[in-house]
């Protein structure tokens, strides 16, 4: 159970940094600039979209209901190489 969550925690924290911490940082860094608002919105939206996209891909494979259909030669190869 523990090892499974590591990717989730890692990705959430990365995009959380980009989407929550960075805009706050920008708020103080670019105080006078007219583009401050644009940069903040861009950071938040990027983080939200990318995190959601990753989450869908990860959750989709969390509990697979079907498996891949492979040729037996390929299975032999995998069983040798990916020991």
């Amino acid at each position, binding site marked *: 159970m523990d090892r499974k969550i590591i990717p989730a925690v890692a990705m959430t924290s990365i995009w959380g940094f980009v989407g929550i911490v960075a805009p706050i940082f920008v708020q103080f860094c670019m105080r006078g600039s007219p583009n401050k608002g644009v940069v903040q919105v861009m950071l938040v939206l990027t983080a939200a979209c990318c995190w959601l996209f990753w989450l869908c891909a990860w959750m*989709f494979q969390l*509990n697979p209901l079907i*498996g891949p259909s492979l040729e037996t030669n390929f299975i032999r190869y995998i069983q040798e190489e990916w020991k």
Partner: protein
Amino acid sequence: MGSVFRSAEMSLCQIFLQSEAAYTCVSELGELGLVQFKDLNPDVNAFQRKFVNEILRCDEMERKLRYIDKELKKDDMKIPDTGENPKAPAPKEMVDLEATFEKIESELREVNTNAEALRRNYLELSELKEVLKKTQNFFAEHGEGHHTIVDDAQNALVHDEMATTSATAVQLGFVAGVIPREKVPAFERLLWFACRGNVFLRIDEIAKPLEDPVTGDAIFKCVFIIFFQGEQLKLRVRKICEGFRATLYPCPESSQERSEMLNGVSTRLEDLNTVLHQTEDHRHRVLANCLKEIRNWIIKVKKIKAIYHTLNMCNFDVSHNSLIAECWTPVSALENVQQALSHGTELSGSTVPSILHRMHTKETPPTFFHTNKFTKVFQSIVHSYGIASYQEVNPALYTIITFPFLFAVMFGDLGHGFIMFLFGLWMVVMEKKLMSSKSDNEIWNMFFGGRYIIMLMGLFSVYTGFIYNDAFSKSLNMFGSSWHPNYSEPLLDSVETLVLDPEYEFDNVTGPYPFGLDPIWQASKNKITFTNSFKMKLSVILGIGQMLLGVMLSLVNHIYFRNPLNIFTEFIPEIVFLLCLFGYLVGLIFFKWATFTVHCSTCAPSLLIHFINMFLFSYTMPNDNFNYQCDHTNPKLTGCKATTVFYRYQNYAQIALVLGAVLCIPIMLCIKPFVLRARHNRKIRRADNLQAVSQSALIHHEEYPEEVKQILIF
């Protein structure tokens, strides 16, 4: 947040301009580019406005410039683009410009007419030369010596017709001329029919095509010579030649006269050639002189015309000898406008300053967005769908990210995305150099204008390429696949393909592939089925997410414009409808992904069928001993399928959701129009009660609210 979040606040200003200073002030305001003038004379006909003469003069100048431009293009002379932006010249200089253009135009026209006449002459002489040469050939074939052509023709005619009357000498006449090659068959046929075969026609092609003086096309022509007997045939032949627009040339009978004429024609042709070349050179020189200046002239004339159009929109106050203009300008630019006005008054040398005066009005101001080079392209994409109303939330701000992101979701290739990113990056880094080398190529300009978008699209495509695990259609294996097949040799020998069972071959301890799709699917035969299911669900989630963002932005609008009616009759039903039906679907997707494992895969609900049944109010209940937990329960005992209810009280919850959503529809459609109508009637009743003439005038000028008009039509 600045004027990218909403459109800029605008104010209506009145400007009082002195007559002398008016032209320069408007020129300065035009260079500033932050002012929109209102037309104060909308009822006045275009021909009755004050500066109509100046505009006609400008039109005339533009016509001359267009003519010169056309002549330059004919000679393939490209106008150099120096990037200069000259200001509009003072009205006095306009007279000088007009004189210059007049001179150049008349010179060009003269040169062109002369050249055309010379070329026509040249054509005639060349044709005559060909005729003489070919007729020489005709008669050389039929014997030599001092036969006159009459004898030759007589021989030829007699020989062709095999006439019995060989002794009688016949008087034969002939005509020679030139006809375009395409008309030759028809010409022959008509001659044959009309003259009943009593004429003799010889045709010979001219090898080199001759240049038509008017159009400049090269036309292939043929020399012909027709022999006939008698006056009537002569007339008929001439008429036919005229009808086919064949040019006839006088050809002398004897051979010596012909050769003398040929020499004379050759000399004349050489002289003409020299004169023609000199005319062309002169024309070229005149055009080369204009080449440097013409771009500046075109810009100057355009600016003069624009200034006079603007001045036409102002009110002319006779008593104070000043012009009154009304314009919209952003509040943040008022300083700049003041500066431009004072600069303009200075330049014109007038002592009376121009006055800028802010006005308050109930009119809706125009929408204006301050954009820099980065946001400009996104703003123009949004404008192509429609321009936002005054002070509405600007969708372009969010488009900066969502547009490239959705493109990347559709594109999703790491390698190609990286190439796209590099291309965009190159264009952005070399921006200054590429902008200065102006290009006429439309496609290149389109790409260059969208360089920021291309860069962002490439960048997001790299990310989605990682998630789809697709680099030039190959997968990367960075973290190790989570599928570990463990089959024995005999089993592998017996079959061709095997479907891995998630219960035994999937690594549940380390979990799914941490970043993106597992690379094993690249080699599998059912990859498409797998990715289809993923992409369909992803599309639903992303689409509903974006719709939710849009509805939330509309809430921001309603709050800003202090419109509680809209919040209750538009926003709340919209959000309830969206969330009850499609938000519920998204929730079901995540629920199924999180809770249904392979142990109860036969129980895994088909969301599509459940969604359809939700609307049809049809529910299949499972057996009584159905355990709603998904664990090692044997599905056969509980009798669950993809279509059976999969959580307790699902049927009641879904009925409630559908009813809630359906209830929103009449709220959205019916409440707001009646409320608006009641408000309007109340206002009218109040006006009637007061019985004041000025009040009713106010009501009549106040417009019926737009929304009521639109809603009541239904």
